[in-house]
């Protein structure tokens, strides 16, 4: 594929917005022929912070880590279904660490041309700007970023895509 978009990376964090982004990524991949990659990051940094702050016991860290592993499997499997239903092959990756850093690293590794993220909620506090992981990734990655909005329209586009 020689167009402007050859490798699309969609970040999936389990939110409805991220699923919409994944649907749009499938649409883009299908129509442009770009390779599709999906990434889920297990936020082990936050888990470690909670243990350090003594909010979590060690046993809780293990329990929640296991929960997040299961979430990752579930959401990536869902992206796999969304793409295969439309005849698009997706490379799916699960990483652990600090979310924005892992997104940046993986985007570089696959030399992504475009990062797709779900719609971000309205920024209501300065903390959002400083600490929102997806927002930080958006600022850090080397490639262009597309924030996917309008769930209904994306759903229609996805539905209308030939299988």
């Amino acid at each position, binding site marked *: 594929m020689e167009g402007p978009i050859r490798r699309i990376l969609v970040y999936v*964090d*389990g939110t409805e917005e991220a699923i919409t982004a994944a649907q749009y990524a499938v649409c883009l991949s299908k129509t442009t022929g770009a390779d599709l990659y999906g990434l889920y990051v297990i*936020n082990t940094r*936050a*888990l470690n*912070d*909670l243990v350090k*702050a*003594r*909010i*979590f*016991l060690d*046993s809780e860290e293990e329990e*929640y880590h296991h*929960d*997040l592993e299961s*979430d990752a499997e579930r959401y990536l499997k869902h992206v796999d279904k969304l793409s295969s239903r439309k005849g698009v092959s997706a490379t799916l990756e699960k990483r652990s660490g600090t979310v924005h850093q892992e997104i940046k690293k993986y985007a570089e590794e696959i030399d992504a041309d475009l990062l797709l993220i779900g719609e971000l*909620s309205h920024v*209501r*506090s*300065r*903390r*959002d700007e400083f*600490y*929102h992981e997806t927002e930080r990734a958006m600022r850090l990655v080397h490639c262009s970023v597309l924030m996917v909005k309008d769930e209904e329209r994306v759903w229609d586009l996805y539905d209308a895509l030939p299988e």
Partner: protein
Amino acid sequence: MALVDLVKPEIIKVPLESKSKQAVIRELLQVLVDAGKLNDFDAAYDALLAREAKGSTGLEAGIAVPHAKTDTVSSLTLAIGIAPEGIDFRALDGNPSNLFFLMLAPPNQSGPHIEALSEIARITQSKTFCKMLLRAQSPEEVAELLTEED
């Protein structure tokens, strides 16, 4: 989910009236019942006490973060209480606790639960900010401080 999405005056109690650990948990759960965010008071109470039995969530510097996973809520649920006089919550440093962030999360929402707890951990690192919260006179004032509305 950002903490700011959970903070509303109706889930905040200032000042708390309770004098003991169990009583403050009950008082905060009642806030959630009154706000229409919790139906099964007893099950939530049991889940929180079960977590406390493993180790107190009373941290240092007057902060307490009682939390539990429970299917008594369908989404992440937060109650905030402020006790300027301090309540014995069996905190790690042995001092009374003043700022209470009680969080309940359904078992399938560990991700948002962790994010919200991390945010609480982060904001309570600022002693100045905690002092400002302690001086707040109303739920609205607490909500405003936490959401930093522009």
